[in-house]
């Protein structure tokens, strides 16, 4: 398999764990994997990206523009910011719940993500989900990263088997949180399957 997966969001949304699970699961299925993360200053409330490159063909650690087949966007504006990485005909799973930058409350800019969502709908093949709504039963949005993985896997766009990923969740997430994360993953998986048959 040769596949570039772009994961983007805002610091603190759990994008790094999502990328680590994808990388580990892809390797478990026999692929060569390279990945790269934004680390350092950008983490603190800034835009973050993880580049996961599956396959022998990748040379550079970062995905070239126009090369990603799949994007997991944890925030709508971050999806638009990183749209340049997508090739034609790929798929974007995007959270429509916007994260306002601190500057937005200060300057009174009315950013709420709706114009980003509308732009994406017009421009690209997207699965739109809302983290706040989906995570309500869990009482916290901190399981959303694993749910995103589920949606991507369920849609078939990730190309990694369900069991491989649940196995990695068990391996990488402390036992007392593993069950609830698996539930979140399976709930996401069902959404992904449903979206693809629509």
């Amino acid at each position, binding site marked *: 398999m040769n596949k570039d997966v772009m994961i983007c969001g805002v610091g603190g949304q759990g994008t790094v764990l999502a990328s680590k699970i994808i990388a580990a699961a892809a390797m478990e299925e026999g692929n060569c994997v390279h*990945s790269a*993360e934004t680390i350092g200053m950008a983490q*603190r409330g800034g835009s973050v990206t993880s580049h996961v490159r599956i396959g022998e063909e990748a*040379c550079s650690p970062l995905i*070239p523009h126009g090369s990603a087949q799949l994007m997991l966007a944890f925030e709508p504006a971050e999806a*638009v910011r990183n749209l340049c990485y997508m090739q034609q005909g790929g798929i974007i799973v995007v959270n429509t719940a916007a994260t306002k930058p601190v500057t937005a409350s200060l300057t009174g800019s009315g950013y709420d993500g709706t114009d980003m969502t509308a732009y994406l709908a017009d421009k*690209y093949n997207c699965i739109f989900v809302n983290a706040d709504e989906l995570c309500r039963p869990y009482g916290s949005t901190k399981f959303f990263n694993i749910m995103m993985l589920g949606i991507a896997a369920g849609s078939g766009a990730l190309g990694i088997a369900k069991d491989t990923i649940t196995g990695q969740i068990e391996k990488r997430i402390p036992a007392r949180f593993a069950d609830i994360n698996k539930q979140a993953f399976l709930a996401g998986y069902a959404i992904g399957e449903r979206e693809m048959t629509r």
Partner: protein
Amino acid sequence: MKEYVMGNGAIALGALAAGVNLVAGYPGTPSSEIIETVARYPHEGVHVEWSVNEKAALEVAVAAAYSGARALVTMKQMGLNVASDPLMSVAYVGVKGGLVIVSADDPGPISSQTEQDGRRYADFARIPVFDPSSPEEAFAMVQDAFEYSEKYNTPVLLRPTTRVCHAYASIVIPDQYAPKEFDGFEKDTGRWVIFPRLSHINHAKMEARNAEVGKDFSAYRFNTVEGAATGKHVKAVVTSGISYACVKECLKDQPAARGNSQADPVRLIRIATAFPFPEDFAVNALDGVDEVLCIEELSPYLEEQILKTAGRHGLKIKVRGKLDGTVPHNGEISTDLAAGILREAYGIQAGFDTVDTSDAPPLPVRPPVLCAGCSHRASFYAVKQAMKGRKAIFCGDIGCYTLGNAMPLDMVDTCLCMGAGITMAQGFAHTHDDRVCFGFVGDSTFFASGMTGVVNAVYNEADMILCVLDNSTTAMTGHQPHPGTGRNMMGNVVEKVDIAAVLKGIGVPDVAVIDPFDLDTAVATVREFADKKGVKAIVFKSPCIALSKPGAPYAVDSAKCINCRKCIREIGCPALVTSGDAVLIDPNLCTGCGLCASICPVEAIGGDVCE
């Protein structure tokens, strides 16, 4: 054993595989994970430490190398400036055991003050340098670097860049490794004591050795020539490091490789050992070449070496790169930038079609900010309130608290380098009688290079206020321990070095230790100190919120809130958001620090059942 690790992890594991005996360094993005990885993997018999700064780390390692042990020193590129004093001298003295200095460069820069090029430091210090283009190569090169260091009795520099340090790849490490056995230090004053006469003799020896190393490097396995191009009028690309990976990504789909002759084929020359320059290799690689495009980050180092080589050997080659404006001087080389340069210069159709986003709505800007609940916010706010209506200069320093520059706090007037906040506050004090001069420094930075500045200020009778923002960790680089935290990298609990006691010992008469979230006391202390002469110090002590258990979130009582927005206008906490006209607290971000509640004029913010 196969491990999926970061480039920094690969360097650490390579050093362990090479039998390293001692590892020392100071945290700095993008290099910090090297020492953390060494500490995480089995390393029995290996001494690991976070030193107080890079100079200390290198000196500790030099002693190990004089003893015949293998030593690794890690730092970011700015750290090499701090360590340059021992570096320049140890280059003259030489070593017995392998001494490898890893200094991670940061093209962009992404999280640094400068875009300096470590290869130039190697040239300046006259020591060999290795420049990996991937984590896999970094793993191999750190082991090669130890071999070369011992073969030629010289310190060696390994110069990875951010994208190598922070890229992940699979590394096969030996199931078993052990630290090197070594003889120990032998007294030999003619060898280990640097005197002008020794330097005079060794200078000549170093240059003779470097000529030899350059020849050796001409056969080095990571200096490579690729591409089908042969014969005359060949076009070449000379590159290294991550730029090599990017150019390779572009050339893998070039028409010539697909049997299409729309463009001339290109010869790809990669030089992984910039100094001593492998001249024989370069001359061979340039055979039949009439045009060279140098694609490299930070500085035109290889480009200048190619120009020199062409001059010395009378090669008629057109050399393009940074010096003629073909390649930008600043910023990273990405695959997309390399594709554009190759298209422009050589007509190669590299890169993929992209989605046109020129019609996208304006994107929100997300500058980095202090975390919700960060104690630095409270400290800055207290000083700002205390200085309302007075003239003051706020000298910042390197760490999370540099982010105190952001609106609405706006409390960093200068930021230069590690420790400069203190000494610059002193400098302003001598040039501005009418202003209160503040130096802000973090706890780790205080130990790294703050203490000598305080001595200087006391000795030279400055009127200034030192604010130590003590969150008991090195937060910005990933929470490394330091002398004030009471634990070290050997896993031991040690006596904490008490910052207030250090300041008193230096002779600072007024030293207050306060909780920054006790806003009234904090403001009163700053006001009191501002009216006193001499050096005064306030230690704002409160643990980093990222390492503490957050309290229950606060909430805004909408019935009481008069929507004055003082909380938003004055403290800029990311947990304070607006929804329509209403001010809300995001319960996912709020840590219950209470700073906003303490400034609300109508007591509308509370920690209980407010809505």
